[in-house]
Each structure stands twice: as C-alpha cells, then as structure tokens.
C-alpha cells in the first residue's frame, strides 16, 4: 500500500516555481532522502507534501492525517519542561505515551528541565522525539540532524529504522549523510524549474510567473 504518491509536482515560493515535474511514491517501510543544492526548493517541497502550502501543479496523494512534519523550528516552548512539551504534542495528536519517546532520544535524564535550558542539540532531539508521540505513519523531516553530534545522529537513524520496520515511511531533506543506507535518494537538481518551460499563456495568470 502506498502511503504517499506525488505525481508531476511543481511547487513555488515567492511566486516563482522552484522545482517541477517531481514524481515519486513512498510505501510503508520505505525512506526517501531528497538532496540538492541550497535554495533548490527542498523545504518548499516538503511543506507542500505536509499540506502547509498548495502545489502549483500536479498532485500529492495520501491518507488524511497521515503526516508528521518536523522542520528547523521545533515548536518547543522555552517555559515548559521537556515532558510538558512532549505531553502537549501527544495530546494534540492523540498519540502515544511520552516515556518511550524520551528514552529513545536519550532525554530521560532531562525530562524535568525547561526547554530554555537545553542546548541546541538537545532541543533538536526533543523535536525529533515529538515525531514518535504523534503516531503518524509518514514522517516528513527537513534537515533533521542539524546541530546533532555523531552519537545522536546514529540514535536518530535507529529511531527511523524502527519506524520503518513498524510500517511507517519517511521523507527527508538533508545535506549530510544520515547513515540510513537502505533509504532511496532523490537528487532534485534535474527538476529545477526552468522559467521558459511553463506553457506561458495557458492560464490566466501565467504572465506573472
């Protein structure tokens, strides 16, 4: 069963297309890593898949409420403790208990510390632990390992592997090696939108694009 199907997708940012003609499917147990130079449109693509912005062209097919999104901003409140932050997101997503997630990302020792007192890497780990309590099958991750040290990257890889083994899927954008050799890689460079390519006067508003 395919969790996510993307056909001929074009996305735009600031009124200009960034990538176009992207197609792929993702089944349970699969992971796909997006690569490409800075500014090609990885973040934009991931946000489109997560439903935060509409596709310019083409379509994204997936079950409703299937996706958990994690980006640079972790959605943490500095004034709440680690457990409180996690418990909040668990309650919002109607997801699982926070204990295993804390343990998996090695946060148990920090459980009662306010998020303000975490280092950047610890914050990032908490943001990733949030994924586990959402109970969502499709993880959409934008540069998940930023500011993590080597140990934490390995820990993260094993969490993703467990998620895939449980029938989930993951779509990730990254510049560095995640140690997930089983993941497919999609380089976005060939899909860079070329201004001339869009059929110009087809739509009403193409004069601007």
């Amino acid at each position, binding site marked *: 069963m395919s969790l996510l199907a993307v056909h001929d997708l074009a996305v735009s940012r600031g009124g200009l297309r960034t990538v176009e003609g992207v197609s792929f499917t993702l089944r349970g147990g699969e992971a796909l890593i997006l690569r490409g130079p800075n500014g090609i449109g990885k973040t934009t693509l991931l946000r489109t898949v997560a439903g935060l*912005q509409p596709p310019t062209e083409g379509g994204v097919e997936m079950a409703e409420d299937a*996706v958990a999104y994690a*980006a640079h901003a972790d*959605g*943490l409140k500095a004034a709440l403790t680690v457990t409180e932050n996690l418990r909040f997101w668990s309650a*919002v997503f109607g997801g699982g208990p926070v204990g295993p997630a804390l343990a998996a990302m090695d946060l148990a020792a920090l459980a009662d510390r306010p998020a303000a007192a975490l280092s950047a890497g610890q914050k990032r780990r908490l943001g990733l632990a949030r994924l586990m309590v959402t109970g969502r099958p499709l993880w959409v991750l934008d540069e998940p390992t930023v500011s993590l040290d080597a140990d934490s990257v390995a820990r993260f890889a094993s969490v993703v592997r467990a998620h895939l083994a449980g029938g989930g899927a993951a779509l990730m954008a990254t510049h560095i090696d995640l140690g997930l050799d089983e993941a497919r890689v999609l380089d976005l460079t060939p899909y860079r939108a070329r201004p001339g390519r869009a059929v110009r006067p087809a739509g009403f508003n193409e004069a601007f694009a």
Partner: protein
Amino acid sequence: MIALLKRDLALAVRAGGGFGLGVAFFLILCALVPFGVGPETSALRPIAPGILWVGALLSCLLSLDRIFALDHEDGSLDLLATAPIPLEGAVAVKALAHWVTTGLPLIAAAPLFGILLHLPGQAVPWLIASLLIGTPALSMLGAFGAAITVGLRRGGLLLSLLVLPLYIPTLIFGTEIVRRGMEQGSTATPLLFLAGITAGVLALVPFAAAAALRVNLR
C-alpha cells in the same frame, strides 16, 4: 483542544506578565486620564464609562500580537496546522486563552479603576456585565487581526490599525450600557445588540482568522 488551552494558560502564567501586564497598563491609562482632564468629579464622572471601555480595549490591544506571533516563530503553528484539530478550533481556543488571561483580569480590575474615575456605584454591575459580554468579541477580533499580521516583522502598529475600527460597534454599545446604567436608564437594547455582535463574531470570525493563518503559513 483542551490541551492547547491548558498549554496557553500555563505559558501565560509561567512566562510572567500574561495576567499582570494588561491590568497594569489599564491602571496606568486610568491614572493618566485625571492628569489629562483634571481631577474634578464633575469632569470625570461623565466620561468614566468611555474611559474605562477605551482603556480595556487598548490593554486588550497591546497583548494581541502574542496570540500567534510566538507560536509562529517557534514553529508550533506549522505543527498545529498539520495536527488533527481544525485550525478554526485552534484559533477559537487561542482567542479564548487570550480572553482568560487578558479580558478576565481586566473585568475583575475595572470596578476598582472605576472608583478612580468616580464611576457611581449603580453603574458598576453594568460595567461588569458589558465587559463580560463585550470583551470576548474583542479577543476574537484581535485574533483575526493577529492572524492577518502574524508573518510581518513588527506588525504591532499595523495590527492596532486594522483591529481598532473593528472594535467600534462593541465600544459604542458597551459604553452605552454603562452610561445608561449610570443614569438608571433602560439597558436592554444595547445589551441585546452587544450580545448579538459578540455572538456573530464568535461564530464567524474564527473561519476568517483560520483562512488568514493558512495564507500566512504558506
């Protein structure tokens, strides 16, 4: 959604100032007015309802940008938009949290500040009633304004500019209630209008605010 409400309230309490600052600003405003217009009862009493309402409105205004801006900055808003609760519900809950942390303390403090402005005693129940009915609309309209300006750097002044004209009907009926209460007149009509506005706002504005938020998340 209850979790969201609880979190917003907890944050307002912890971050400090959620409850207090609005009331303090209200107090300062009410204290400034006698300096501006002179301390005589005859000068203060007729304008007391208006000043109290305008003061409550401005205090409410100044805390509006907190409704969404912090959640936008730290990415919570993105996550809430992908969460299984409708964004309209999240907007309503956040407006409710704003009302609880700003509107309620203002209502509690208003009678006290009424004394500063020589508001007669028989008007106090009407002051409380009008604020109770009117301030939820202020919070909800404020949430709409905050949703529109959430992505903008330093949208504070713009937010005020957009929201204040929307506050006019509430302000007019609110002060009218207090004024009539002060003069022992009939308050039924303005009360009805005020309640009608609040009901309409609470029913419809969350959709507009959620639409604005979605645009800003794009």
